[in-house]
């Protein structure tokens, strides 16, 4: 329940209504053309470019008084930038915030998709540093725009071919390119390729904001999203030999933590809410402690 913004002299969610309208128009265009990068008049925000201003502007464009917001970075709610962004929205909107994925209506994320499947009515907002999938191969914006318009994506497969010729496998581990709705080549932001399959046919709305590069794109609910590969070198996600040391999960993305100077290490779920939830349900890994049920 909304306590109201605590900051004086600013509009709800910081941006003025005209700007929010401009952003929503861009979002509508993006949803109408899945995977297509829509230019928008990104504003200077009180956080620096490169630190999530695109995601923040998208969230500011869609957030309402009755929303519940979750913000994560690297899958965790308590990393410093997630804390900072969550605090920003708390101050400027007064909306409830949460760490629980299932309770959130809007989830703003950097570099991860939550492990827990998202549902109809939820919105996932991704922070994007470089929106253009062809940027490394072709630095010119005028040329990449044409390539998208004419569906000239051969050069992307050349890169994958080269990887296989050189390394015996496709060497991209994050920000792995996908084709959306069978048409546009898209960068999903630096999420690990482990998360790519979650984007396919997701019941939630996925919005992508790049503030510095001034682009918004979207994947509407239940849209086809395919990661690029070759027929004989199909797309594969990462696997670990270990399970989460705290909750024992076998199916989540694991962070490596260095324990001591002798190379001792352990692995734990990157998604902190997922891990805590499992522990509260009694799943305890070798290094975990029982959690009180929430």
């Amino acid at each position: 329940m909304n306590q109201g913004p605590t900051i004086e002299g600013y509009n709800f969610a910081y941006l003025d209504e005209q700007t929010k309208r401009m952003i929503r128009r861009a979002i509508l265009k993006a949803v109408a053309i899945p995977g297509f990068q829509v230019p928008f008049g990104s504003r200077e925000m009180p956080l620096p470019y490169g630190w999530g201003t695109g995601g923040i502007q998208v969230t500011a464009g869609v957030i309402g008084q009755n929303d519940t917001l979750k913000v994560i970075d690297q899958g965790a709610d308590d990393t410093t930038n997630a804390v900072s962004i969550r605090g920003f929205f708390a101050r400027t909107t007064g909306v409830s915030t949460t760490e629980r994925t299932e309770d959130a209506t809007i989830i703003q994320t950097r570099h991860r998709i939550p492990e827990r499947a998202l549902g109809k009515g939820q919105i996932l907002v991704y922070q994007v540093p470089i929106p253009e999938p062809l940027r490394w191969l072709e630095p010119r914006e005028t040329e990449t725009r044409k390539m998208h318009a004419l569906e000239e994506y051969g050069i992307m497969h050349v890169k994958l071919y080269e990887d296989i010729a050189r390394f015996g496998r496709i060497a991209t581990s994050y920000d792995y390119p996908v084709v959306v709705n069978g048409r546009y080549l898209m960068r999903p932001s630096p999420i690990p390729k482990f998360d790519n399959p979650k984007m396919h046919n997701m019941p939630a709305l996925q919005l992508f904001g790049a503030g510095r590069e001034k682009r918004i794109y979207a994947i509407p609910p239940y849209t086809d999203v395919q990661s690029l590969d070759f027929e004989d070198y199909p797309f594969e996600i990462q696997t670990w030999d270990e399970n989460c040391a705290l909750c024992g999960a076998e199916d989540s993305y694991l962070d490596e933590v260095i324990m001591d100077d002798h190379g001792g290490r352990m692995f734990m779920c990157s998604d902190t809410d997922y891990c805590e939830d499992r522990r509260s349900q009694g799943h305890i890994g070798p290094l975990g402690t029982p959690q009180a049920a929430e």
Partner: protein
Amino acid sequence: MYVAVKGGEKAIENAHRLLAEKRRGDTAVPELTITQIKEQMSLAVDRVMTEGSLYDRDLAALAIKQARGDLMEAIFLLRAFRTTLPRFASSKPIETTKIKAHRRISATYKDLPGGQLLGPTFDYTHRLLDFALMAEGELPQAEVCEPQDEDLPRVTSLLNAQDLIEREQATDDEPVSDLTREPLDLPAGRDVRLQNLARGDEGFILAMGYSSQRGYGNNHPFAGEIRMGDVEVVIEPEELGFPVSIGDITVTECEMVNQFKGTEAEAPKFTRGYGLSFGEAERKAMAMALVDRSMRAEELGEEVMGPAQDQEFVLYHSDNVEASGFVQHLKLPHYVDFQGELEMVRNLRAEQAEKFRKAGE
């Protein structure tokens, strides 16, 4: 047993408190006032206004104080504040012909109508650290002439009268774009390019201009005219139907005279570059004029040889708020992506070791 470290929120709060302490410094020393910054560090204020795209000396001074003197940080503060300001009107173009000049020089003529007026410039100072400034003291009075009444004729008008220089005219009837409202779109019109340069980082634009002088696409510049002074800002609200002056601002304007060019239809003429900044930011106005002209290389049929002539390169990398954000974002956690890379490298190494092992059998 491993305990995950929590408390990012507290850490951030404490970091902010520490920052405020550092900003204040030794409390035995008098606190810096906004007025002091405005008066005695006016060139810093000018730069922050120019690149912050906001003319307000008090706010710029506040930003400088809050930023502990880091001008890029101050520019960022001013830009973020600008985002929240409502728009009432667009002014008419300022009339620099009617400038009340504090300074006006030309390198292309020894003498010209209106004269060479040096104004408050570092140009002829000897760069010797003045230890007298460590103490506070009285200053000798400077001799200043009466401000002139007539308009100062432009050097470019003088050249124009003899048809020696290209005329600046709009190439279309499109309304002027606003780079602070719309994203950059290439190819960019001259209005957008000039806006981008005006708010671009002085160091970057200076380096680009410098590179063109050193041969990375030289266009033989001459400083046709530099004028610095006060101009009126005029709006014409629809309800009134007549122009209204809302105040004066100080600007510096630079017009460069560059390499001449002819076509089969027209005899050769000098070409131009244009620079404009708030306050006395003269170096910025000059650098901007150099780069403005360099970016017209393709339009003027010149071979593109250096980055200053590459519009996409200049326009995309000139904004220090964007650049600073992205460079510094590397400090944010990247451990999830890095984990992916670690795993990739480990696997590749294992596969290669396996290959060698098999080959050895």
